[in-house]
């Protein structure tokens, strides 16, 4: 199953791997890290890496904070139009992102957000999936915690920041990791909303590299590895949370 990953690593560690037509020859040829050096230096993968990181980190932070806020309101507060509000979240779950890609692109053009980080971050800082995750979790948290805090003198936002957020840490970890993975890998919208090299993310940069005249597979696979390795490392550390998130995430699709 993980052979293709192994293949990627193998090619990335060989100089001009496309020259070998025999598997054995390829394997026994010299290993080198040169591809990584070149990919980062001359092929702007350092910029792509930074952009991917920046976008994924900010979207993740946004999701952790905003989904927490909205999920908390759904679980605990009463307000006018709550029923419509709730169904709007459900409803958006069934809108495929490909249907809104054209108007969203036009919107970004209108806002002059093409080739800015805004277009890559803002639309995704709060997601129905995250809201649901937090909402479900808070249903299992006793409401007495907040009441005790109210009696202890805590205000609305102090309850939110000093009690609710720390208590929700397990689910925010799941949400955070899941969001980071998704956005580190996200391709469609960064692909549509950028056309300058300095705003491209890793997946977008990789596809443009593929479009070049002659493909240097060594470089390309090194770039792919740079894109895939953080995810593999995260996965090995947070396997439990990721699987939990994915099972919950199946609601989303």
């Amino acid at each position, binding site marked *: 199953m993980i052979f293709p990953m192994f293949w990627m690593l193998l090619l990335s560690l060989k100089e001009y791997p496309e020259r070998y037509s025999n598997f054995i020859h390829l394997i026994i040829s010299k290993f080198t890290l040169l591809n990584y050096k070149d990919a980062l230096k001359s092929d702007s993968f350092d910029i792509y890496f930074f952009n991917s990181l920046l976008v994924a980190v900010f979207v993740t932070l946004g999701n952790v904070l905003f989904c927490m806020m909205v999920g908390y309101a759904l679980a605990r507060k009463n307000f006018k139009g709550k029923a419509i509000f709730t169904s709007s979240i459900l409803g958006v779950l069934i809108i495929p992102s490909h249907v809104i890609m054209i108007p969203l692109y036009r919107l970004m053009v209108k806002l002059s957000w093409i080739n800015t980080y805004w277009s890559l971050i803002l639309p995704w800082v709060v997601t129905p999936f995250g809201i649901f995750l937090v909402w479900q979790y808070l249903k299992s948290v006793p409401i*007495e915690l907040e009441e005790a805090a*109210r*009696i202890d003198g805590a205000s609305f936002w102090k309850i939110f920041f000093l009690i609710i957020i720390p208590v929700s840490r397990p689910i925010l970890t799941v949400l955070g990791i899941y969001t980071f993975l998704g956005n580190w890998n996200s391709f469609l919208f960064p692909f549509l909303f950028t056309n300058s090299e300095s705003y491209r993310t890793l997946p977008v940069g990789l596809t443009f590299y593929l479009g070049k005249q002659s493909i240097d597979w060594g470089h390309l696979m090194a770039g792919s590895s740079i894109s895939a390795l953080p995810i593999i490392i995260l996965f090995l550390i947070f396997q439990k949370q990721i699987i939990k998130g994915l099972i919950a995430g199946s609601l989303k699709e």
Partner: protein
Amino acid sequence: MKVRLENISKSFEKGKSILKDISLMIDDGEFCVFLGPSGCGKTTLLRIIAGLEKEDTGTIFFNDKVINSLEPKNRNIGMVFQNYALYPHLNVFDNIAFPLKISGEKKEKIKERVLQISEFIGLKEYLDYKPKQLSGGQRQRVALGRAISRSPQIFLFDEPLSNLDAKLRMQMRTELYQLHKELGTTSIYVTHDQVEAMTMGDKIVVLNNGIIQQIGSPFEIYENPSNLFVATFVGNPQINLFTIDSLNLNDDSSSLNQKLILNFYESLKEILQSNPVKIAIRPENIFLKPVFPHSIFLGKRKILTIEYMGNETIVNFEFNKELKSFRTNEKIHLNQDEYIDIYLNQDKLIFFDNNNNKI
């Protein structure tokens, strides 16, 4: 701090009435217990006093000052919840310190106060522990510690012992009571457990269906229940109930001891004139011999079951196809299915009219 409630009413959204016209008075330093079955409104009443819920109508006074419009945090109260509601992410120190930190106390002062409290509740060695690492009893104590850290004027307890096992519950009961005696703070305690109510309360407020049934000392509640609900709710085994017909009190040909009948009629004449429908008697006022001068003979009755408890024995016997019971601490030997003589202490009979109110 004195607490006075005047005409408190509360309904939930669907128009279901939870509390109807509640008025009561709690003296400074008093330990007052709200007792009643689940759903009687006792917890809602406590939450209204705490300010966690808003009353529909009525007035709440703390020391003659109307506090209806005050937020919970400004009511100067401490509350202990059924599930303790400890902040799971904070250790014992920070849990107790939380109210102090929120009110902006100085660091040294907080430390001093928390140490003082932790000593008081006997958890000085556990300050670094998270709630998860503590036993049920210890958690309960932390909850207490947090409630007293701001030195509130009133303590509110919402069934604080119901999550503990029987033995621990008894121990915590004593501890709570001692704490109350030491601090002398007005306390309101909600429970469905009559033993807790009887042993701890200076004053008991019995509630049912959102209505106050009786307010009184444990003695008054037990010995002098104002209605059938209070009589049957308090006491274990339950009070024995007889319908007036089954006893045939107006009938000369009844099974009652002829000698006593005259006497009986004389002293009960007034009560019988007001047409009682039910008569009740506590299990400890039933005897195998006519111990008291005013005893009523209930005939020979069959023993159904015997519950030997060590210090006392509860005997269930049959009367008119119903189960009645009496309690004795005499070391006597009885057998199941044996027939025994049953005598009621006539002075301890309680009579109820057709509205179930005591005559």
